[in-house]
């Protein structure tokens, strides 16, 4: 008997059929992966299950009983809990307080009963191996532990069905292993899990059954042992996908970027880049690996003039730019694919063609004096949209109407269509679908082969390995090591990302240089 069954769920938004007659069953004690590209309808489906949307058609059955889920409280009542990708925690409160929020246990109906809740948290963490200190403040905890708190929150509300939304997106490889152990201990005690992801390797590692969504429909449900990555990727995208970044050996030329002993403070005045030195030559890709929040963001901001350097030097083709404005740096021939495309990369309310000239609107041929040349701007928009395969009915639509992948393509189109000699790409494919990742990776390598120096910052190890010629690993604002891409294993990189220096034997255990597979 399935613990959860979705029957014929259909949900349309004006103009889009987000879920089309979706059936899904979850057995007791099962890990069921829901796989699909962004926009395939995974999130809509889960939001329906969690009571955030109402389906147009179809029904939800819990333990064979049809239920109506109007809001998250109903979902919790039926034993359905959700761990969101972006944690819903209050940083300045303790673990106990965060677990209590919305479900406060009280003494005499007035006083919060911290002790009872802490006790319950300890019981839960002992039972499932979710080690966490109930009195710790969230802001002091690493991301992996914060995720445990989210899981405890759900278990505290006695959920039997857990929905994990992209749970590995923010974790190191080691933390992912820890999470998987927890997930297994959960199903061992009879919990059932829906695991949402777009990473193929993880799915094969953790799931019992896999349901693939595409374009709002179920493409198929299979058992993990019966498929491989290529097959899953093809199901997701609807065609055969090139899982390997094809690239020739790099031909590094003259020094393009030299960073020496750089210190940067973030907006809250914390010293987050702590004496970083490296250089990049024209025609090579330097990958900067690291778990999010280890200074990569601020490093990129300093390189592009968005944050001032406290000390140290940044030279581009020999010119020191550490005191230059963003515009002066752009005019040096620096392209920047920003980490947060909606914050820095796009003006969402502007039409696509205006976003395509965001960095050079004041230059010929887009402006003559102060007069914007509308014809040139729109024809430039049409051309780039075509050239970079941005899927949109018209370049005059606002950028907000594009999917994430197409928004990123707009940024890539803008940055690559200028004459550039240094490309700084921060998380260039975060949250994108397989097709877009494939496309953007091949474009980056194409730029490299044209003689552009490339810095790729990514928290996805597979992306770093796929693109880089050399890899620098950042940890707590410092560079742990810079290595040749072919000479290090993923596990060794994982250790460096966690701040562990490699011993001599480990360094010798070289991995043969092969074509590296891209993983999602």
């Amino acid at each position: 008997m399935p613990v959860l069954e979705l029957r014929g769920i259909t949900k349309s938004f004006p103009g889009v059929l987000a879920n089309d007659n979706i059936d899904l069953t979850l057995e007791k004690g099962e890990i069921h992966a829901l796989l699909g590209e962004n926009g395939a309808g995974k999130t809509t489906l889960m939001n329906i299950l969690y009571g955030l949307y109402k389906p147009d058609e179809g029904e939800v059955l819990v333990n064979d009983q049809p239920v109506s889920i109007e809001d998250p409280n109903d979902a919790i009542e039926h034993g359905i809990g959700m761990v969101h990708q972006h944690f819903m925690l209050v940083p300045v409160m303790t673990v106990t307080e965060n677990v209590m929020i919305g479900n406060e246990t009280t003494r005499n109906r007035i006083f919060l009963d911290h002790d009872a809740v802490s006790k319950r948290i300890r019981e839960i963490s002992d039972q499932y191996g979710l080690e966490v200190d109930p009195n710790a403040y969230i802001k002091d905890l690493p991301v992996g532990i914060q995720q445990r708190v989210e899981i405890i929150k759900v278990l505290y509300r006695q959920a039997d069905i857990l929905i994990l939304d992209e749970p590995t997106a923010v974790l190191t490889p080691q933390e992912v292993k820890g999470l998987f152990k927890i997930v297994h201990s959960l199903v061992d005690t009879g919990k059932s899990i829906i695991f949402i992801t777009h990473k193929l390797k993880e799915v094969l590692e953790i799931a019992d059954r896999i349901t693939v969504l595409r374009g709002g429909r179920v493409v198929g449900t299979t058992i993990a042992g019966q498929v491989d990555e290529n097959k899953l990727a093809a199901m997701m995208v609807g065609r055969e996908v090139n899982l390997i970044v094809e690239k020739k050996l790099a031909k590094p030329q003259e020094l393009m970027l030299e960073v020496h002993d750089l210190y940067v403070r973030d907006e809250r005045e914390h010293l987050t880049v702590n004496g970083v030195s490296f250089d990049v030559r024209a025609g090579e890709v330097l990958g900067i690996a690291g778990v999010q929040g280890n200074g990569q963001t601020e490093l990129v901001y300093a390189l592009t003039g968005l944050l001032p350097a406290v000390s140290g030097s940044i030279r581009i083709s020999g010119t020191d730019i550490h005191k230059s404005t963003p515009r002066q740096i752009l005019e040096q021939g620096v392209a920047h694919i920003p980490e947060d495309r909606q914050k820095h990369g796009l003006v969402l309310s502007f039409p696509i063609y205006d976003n395509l000239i965001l960095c050079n609107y004041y230059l010929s041929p887009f402006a003559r004096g102060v007069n914007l040349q509308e014809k040139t701007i729109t024809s430039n928009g049409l051309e780039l949209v075509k050239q970079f395969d941005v899927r949109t009915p018209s370049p005059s639509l606002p950028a907000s109407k594009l999917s994430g992948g197409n928004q990123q393509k707009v940024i890539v189109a803008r940055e690559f269509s200028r004459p550039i000699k240094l490309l700084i790409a921060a998380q260039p494919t975060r949250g994108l679908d397989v097709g877009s990742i494939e496309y953007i990776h091949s474009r980056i390598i194409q730029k490299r082969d044209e003689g552009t120096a490339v810095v790729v910052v990514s928290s996805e190890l597979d992306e770093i390995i796929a693109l880089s010629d050399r890899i620098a690993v950042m940890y707590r604002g410092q560079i742990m090591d810079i290595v040749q891409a072919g000479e290090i294993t993923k596990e060794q990189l994982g250790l460096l990302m966690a701040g562990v220096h490699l011993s001599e034997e480990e360094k010798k255990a070289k991995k043969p240089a092969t074509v590296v597979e891209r993983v999602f």
Partner: protein
Amino acid sequence: MKDQKVKDTSPKPKENKSLAQEIAAGWQSLLLPLLAIFTGLLIGAIVIAVSDAKVVEAWAQFFQAPGAALAATWKAISTAYGALFGGALGSPKAIVEGFRTYVSTGESTDLLKAIYPLSESLTTSTPYIFAGLAVAVGFRCGLFNIGAEGQFFMGALGAAFVGYNMRGIPWFIHLPLALLGGAAAGAIWGAIPGYLKARFGAHEVVNTIMMNWIAFRLSDWLLNGPMKASGFRPVTPNIDQTAELPRFFADPLRLNWGFPLALLTAYLIYWLLFKTTIGFEIRTVGANPDAARYAGINIIKNFVLAMVISGALAGLSGSAQVLGVDHWVGQGFSAGYGFDSIAIALLGKSHPFGVVLAALLFGTLRSGATRMQSMAGIPIDIISIIQGLVIIFVAAPAIIRWLYRIKAISGEQTVLTRGWGK
């Protein structure tokens, strides 16, 4: 997922469908403000009815004479709104007949009398257009200029000063100089909070409010001291005739060159905002300051620039009122033009053409209200209530959508889900 878009590329939206959506979006952006105005008038009608003693009395007898209650209600509302719109637009019949008399006999008295209400409405709209543009330019740069009132006052004083102080120069020098003087005074008043924001991060809302008070008290002093005309009242001397914005018709019609000047200015602001790199920068800073910085745009410069332009426009608003209508400045001269202009910019969606339409509406209501007060005995404040309601409905379109069961079109829907879970 980072960006939870309902919209998707894989079932690719058909081109014609999305075009239809575009049209629907355009239609809605017009329909919603119209319905907001309509709803404001409707609720205003209720207020008029319940504040009328006769209507209330008739309703007390509703079960004895339901017809009388309804008739009394209808009478109160129709008299009030009849006077309002009659006072604002005049009678079409009288205009046609006046025109006929003028063509056949050359006698213009009837015609002028017939178009007098229209002339008053446009005259009242003129400062609204300038001041609405002022606030709109601020909005476009992401700045909330509440100081239009003070800038309006300073502009009026600046224009008056040039107007009465310089004598014996030809009008084609004196008038532009007076306008320039008003614009400059307003621009300075706007630039101060703009600079404080750019340099020290001081919030422009607080600073523009403070600048309003400084402007009011400064004007008290100026009108009682340095700028006081001879006599008892704290007013400036009359401006010289060469500084006046010429009127189109003989007295009492006050429609003057300020009105076409306002329309021209609206077009210039449209050109500046949407057709030039200057406007591109202002709009980028307003729509997404982070992206503006990323693109190398100098945010500080644009904050100051936008406040200077905004202040200059508010200053022009005051100048147009002095040079075209009053010809002197007294205490309380600004009379809420600057504050109403916030509402106008909101109603006009911060677009110059929208501002013109919203200003015409406000001007019409204001000038009609005077007649409504004298004809129907309805206090002029009812107009403020209607204006307030319209603004609420424009600021919260969800209410209008709910009232009239208008579905939001896709794209707007995505806003609901975007960022959810962050």
